[in-house]
């Protein structure tokens, strides 16, 4: 029973981290129609910048400054790169972000080298917050939860309660009309892109110490972020939240409990073949849930796309 609670907390941390990435991406996606492949790269930049700043000024300044730099970089990419490619259509835009992701990875290696960076949890938060049946919950994880929830509430407030948010929401659906009303839509696009990438930067700052700061960190997270927003429904902030948490919990529980494929199949009445070693499906029979935990989201995505292409909370058929 206690383990379930622990797993819920762990899944929450994973899910909320995913949410910080997918929130920005889903906004960018619905606004510009672009699958921003470089989104996770901005997450990586956040971690590296924060590491560099933390050496000189400490973790907290890193948390403050790194996302700003990332946001400015993101806005710059929109202004001088994407906007230019936008005129050619969606595929070139998408491929642009794809190439950008590769280039950022190369740049990071160029500047920081190829090794893991010793970017660590700050001393203040390096203790056990509490324990549940012998399982310690590090304080940093609690900190991560609070930061992510804070950001979600902030985003929700800005998008639904402020004038800027209203304009953004309108610009998402009716860019021409909003432009005709005298608002600078390209500026809004640039701003949203900047804020979206800054959010990814925040995620990088707080995930770097826990998940490791290395040149492959963007790749590990890259496609799963798309999966999240596709499952949640493009452009839906709530969808992104629900899908993130769903994926967080799904993978955590799948890893925590050893569910065997043979148990499931036996459960539905298919008996295990006698000579498993000679059977061509032997590998299939011996699959366990931790083995496939991290590919479960892809299975879920394919199923959702087949049966409900708009995603869980999507309003439109894409």
């Amino acid at each position, binding site marked *: 029973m206690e383990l379930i609670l622990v797993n819920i907390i762990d899944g929450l941390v994973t899910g909320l981290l995913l949410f910080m990435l997918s929130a920005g991406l889903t906004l960018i*996606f619905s606004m510009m*129609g*672009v*699958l921003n492949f470089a989104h996770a790269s901005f997450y990586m930049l956040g971690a590296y910048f924060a590491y560099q700043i933390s050496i000189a000024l400490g973790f907290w300044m890193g948390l403050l400054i790194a996302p700003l730099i990332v946001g400015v970089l993101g806005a710059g990419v929109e202004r001088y*790169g994407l906007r*230019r*490619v936008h*005129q*050619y*259509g*969606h*595929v*070139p835009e*998408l*491929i*642009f972000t*794809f*190439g*950008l992701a*590769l*280039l950022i990875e*190369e*740049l990071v290696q*160029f500047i920081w*080298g190829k090794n893991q960076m010793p970017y660590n949890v700050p001393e203040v938060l390096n203790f056990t917050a509490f324990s549940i049946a012998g399982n310690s919950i590090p304080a940093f994880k609690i900190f991560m939860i609070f930061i992510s929830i804070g950001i979600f509430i902030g985003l929700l407030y800005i998008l639904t309660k402020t004038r800027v948010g209203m304009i953004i929401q309108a610009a998402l659906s009716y860019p021409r009309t909003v432009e005709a009303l005298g608002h600078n839509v390209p500026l809004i696009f640039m701003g949203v892109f900047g804020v979206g990438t800054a959010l990814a930067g925040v995620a990088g700052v707080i995930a770097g110490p826990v998940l490791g700061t290395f040149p492959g960190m963007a790749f590990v997270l890259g*496609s799963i972020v*798309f*999966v999240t927003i*596709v499952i949640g429904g*493009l452009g839906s902030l709530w969808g992104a939240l629900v899908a993130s948490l769903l994926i967080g919990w799904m993978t955590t529980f799948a890893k925590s409990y050893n569910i065997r494929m043979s148990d499931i199949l036996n459960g539905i009445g298919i008996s295990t073949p006698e000579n498993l070693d000679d059977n*061509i*499906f*032997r*590998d*299939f029979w011996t*699959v366990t849930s931790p*083995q*496939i935990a991290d*590919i479960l989201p*892809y*299975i879920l*995505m*394919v199923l959702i*796309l*087949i049966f409900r*292409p708009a995603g869980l909370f999507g309003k439109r*058929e*894409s």
Partner: protein
Amino acid sequence: MTDQITTDPSKPAQRMRAGSMSLTVGPWIVAAVALMLMPYIFTSNSALTIMNQMWITVVFALAYNMLLGQGGMLSFGHAVYAGVGGFACMHIMNNSDLFASFPLPVLPIFGGLFGMGLAMIVGAFSTRSAGTVFAMISLGVGELIAACSVIIVAFFGGEEGVSGDRTYAMPFFGNEFLQQIDVYYLTSFWVLLSAILMYLWSRTPVGRMANAVRDNPERAEFLGYSARWVRFYSFVASGFFAGVAGGLFAINYEILTEENLNTASSGVILLVTFLGGVGFFFGPIIGAIVFTLVQTVLSLQTELWAFYAGSLFLATVMFFPGGLAGLMMMHVPVFRLGKMKMLLLPYAKTLIPAAIGILGLCCLVEMTFHYRHAATGDHEMTLFWTTFDSHTLMPWIIAAAITAVGLGIAKMTAPALKEAWDEANTAGGTS
């Protein structure tokens, strides 16, 4: 994202005219002769190996462009069709009785059939719509199959993959394909055959309708064609040729591993195709040749090859969305007008300094890299046959000066080039 992943028709910047070329035999004969003669120019085994790799990439990229360029379907997991075709070929190779019953050059057909089979299964549900849904399903399926490669060891062989020996096939007119040169001709035969077949495909009714569905699926439906089935046929055909590429891979390397399936390979083929240009049939061929050279030859020269490749790619997307082929085809009207001469001098004035400037920039990048990452005490580095000390100021000044002067001149002469370009593109005029 709109339903259809193609460019907006009202924007003339990108004109896809894959369909507007007429069928001529000339280029194919030139290609065949070139393929025959290449081994006499580049005789070493490594050159043959690299060329084989190039031709395999050509087949794969052309197959990919059947989807992206001609069908308007963006796939993030196309490597799995080539990979599964290749794995199937390896298993056939390892089944000695079956393998000994036919000559080696037949093997790629089996690769194609298996790639096609998988494409039929996946296509059955993924081609219902194009656009984001198709792209994301391809990503998901690609990830799933790539993940299977380490889980389902019986077929994919786990990490070390599946290996075999091509020489156990039935001798083909006494040839057992022991040497690279034999394999080269086998590969060349297949690349030519596949390219011709894929070109002819684009001239068939279903190939033409693939273009129509790409441009306007709804209109195609009101002409009696189901957009879904048109996509399905393109997808299956693309899967077949991807499988052929996989079969050629199996013959060349005699081993298939997880890397033949993973998303990185799928991403590479997207880059290759786009770099070459999706709007023209021959675009992917150029892309495959350029990329293979960058990956295999440039990587022998510098560790930063991926950095340069990435920059080249990004520059292409930003400035020449038609890819290298588009860049070439831009000159066709000028050529037709007989005004190519007018461009030569302005080109020389701008592009040569620009090239020098860019090379200077590369020198600065290499020197920075050397300064930061080389062994302590190893101050010596060689660039362009010049050996110098990277820790002294002089080389930096020289490189910076070359860069500044080169790019400066290019910037100065660029307006003149633009003028000449506009002039050359106008019919009539002075010449």
